[in-house]
């Protein structure tokens, strides 16, 4: 079953008189429980593509279907609902609310989907336990390490049981050891049936996925299965 289908998507930014083609004619399908890495040089359109897939941005041209629903035709509120229920974002810079503790950060998407207090707290706590942060539930972001912050962000992405996790360079701000721990977590998430798209600059990070899409100047340069996939093990 495919979750995402995009056909001939392009995105053009106008900067002054010049046009920047961030994406050109990109077509893709992403199936359920796939684990996809997106690679490419800086400025090749990876983040633009992720924002598009995450319904944060709209394409200049082309067609986008999310679970067989036409995203291009959706209203602002419908897009917000899709982002809330179907998509879990993980950012390079974590993007947690600095004044709120871990629990409240994870609760936030559930507040926006109208889930009541007790259930909300339960689910947020469980999500934090799942990412190994049961000890840090009441800590604020500035009381957590980078890796722990990213775990909170991952818990926040997972707490709504989304159809897909979109992670734009989730290890970009972490040292390689911490990055590896996060990748172990992503692997577990994938193994429990989730669909993941992850942007990275590192070949060894991309090897954790089962498919690598390479972008170049806004084109899909290559789209291949990973033959020598690296399955991390916990030691």
């Amino acid at each position: 079953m495919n979750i995402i289908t995009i056909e001939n998507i392009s995105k053009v930014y106008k900067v002054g008189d010049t046009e920047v083609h961030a994406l050109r004619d990109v077509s893709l399908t992403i199936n359920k429980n796939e684990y996809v890495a997106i690679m490419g040089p800086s400025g090749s359109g990876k983040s633009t593509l992720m924002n598009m897939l995450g319904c944060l941005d709209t394409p200049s041209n082309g067609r986008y279907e999310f679970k067989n629903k036409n995203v291009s035709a959706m209203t602002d509120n419908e897009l917000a609902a899709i982002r809330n229920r179907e998509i879990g974002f993980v950012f390079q810079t974590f993007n947690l609310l600095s004044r709120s503790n871990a629990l409240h950060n994870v609760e936030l998407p559930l507040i926006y989907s109208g889930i009541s207090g007790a259930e909300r707290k339960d689910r947020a706590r469980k999500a934090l336990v799942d990412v190994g942060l049961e000890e840090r539930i009441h800590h604020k972001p500035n009381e957590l390490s980078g890796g722990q912050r990213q775990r909170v962000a991952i818990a926040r992405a997972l707490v709504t049981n989304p159809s897909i996790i979109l992670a734009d360079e989730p290890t970009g701000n972490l040292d390689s050891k911490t990055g590896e721990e996060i990748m172990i977590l992503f692997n577990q998430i994938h193994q429990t049936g989730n669909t993941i798209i992850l942007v990275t600059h590192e070949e060894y990070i991309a090897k954790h996925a089962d498919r690598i899409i390479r972008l170049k100047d806004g084109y899909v340069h290559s789209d291949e299965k990973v033959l020598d996939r690296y399955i991390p093990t916990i030691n």
Partner: protein
Amino acid sequence: MNKHFFFEFKEGFIIAITAIFSNKIRSILTMLGIVIGITSVVTMSTAIRGIDNSFQEGISSLGTDVLYIDKWAWFSNVEWWKMRNRKSITMEDYDKFRSMAQLPLASAPVANTGQRVKHKEKYIDRVIINGSTADYLKTTNFTFSMGRFYSEIESKSSRYVAVIGSEVAKNLFPLGDALDKEIKVGGVAFRVIGVLEEQGSIILGNFNPDNQVFVPIGTIFKHFMGQSFGSVTINVRAVSPALVEETKVEAQSVMRKIRGLGYQEPDDFSINQQEGLMEQYNQVVGVIQIAGIFITSLSLFVGAIGIMNIMFVSVRERTREIGVRKAIGATRKTILLQFLLESSTICLIGGFIGLLFAVILSQVIDRFLPTSVQYDAVFLAIGISLITGIVAGLAPAYTAAKLDPVEALRYE
């Protein structure tokens, strides 16, 4: 759907409180305009209520059906120096008036002076001493707690008898044994023959109707004329309030005849009544009210601009946060609500602080003018601060709500 809204409302409120408290000094400075605005609106309305209360009670002792023919107008556009040049109203004028005017229920001449009133060691300064005739009683609604008013004989022969107000009695005779005792009015001995019941009136300026003494007018002329105005007032009581106007018209023509005024000449006396006082009062209060509304709206306006400004800063500072919230499912409405809640919370807190100041200030005012902050003023304060918050927050909140999520997330 409603439940949904409630959660977002609660979340928005928590965010608002957190934002306000994590920026205490800024929040306080922002609130200042609202605090001042609300303090002034509530204090103003409380003060006006106080003035109203004491005025209404004070004026009621004047009676709606009584005219006061006087050399001076209480309120008029005639310059005071023109009135000063008017002839005094004399006892002869009064006698003529009494025999010529047909409509009044009663009329009485009044000459007054301020004197120290003394009984043994106790004394009160600046008591109003009213000299009049026995007819004076008919122009008032006096009731006696003890004794009686002076008779026609006593008044005609200028006996040294006095009727004292309840305040005077209370101060000089705390035991309540005033009757037949001697008091000294400006050094002259009088015998107390009556004590008035409390008129329950509130001090208006420095006039307290319970702090008066009534004596035959002849004694005033004999002992205090040099210190009095040298002109009497004629108190004229109409048969009923409905007949006040007719009585006034008649009184005017009678007075003109007595004074021998020609056809073209203006009145050289004034006929005062409570109504004129009322009009004048309403004008004064009206001006105070307009000034109050002006000051209040000005400070609220300045306050609102301050809040709008700080909200724009807040939106800018939290651009990334807005992006994150949108990325995880906040709608435009949610963001709009969040910032509106923040601005109205700031205003409401400011409003409550202002209310607090107003309550303290009205306690100070209460010492001069009995008054207190009423419920309607409280609701007014809350309403105004809420509206100010919403109006001031609207533009910044709208800016936040329509931010593009990608741009917002990219914002440094």
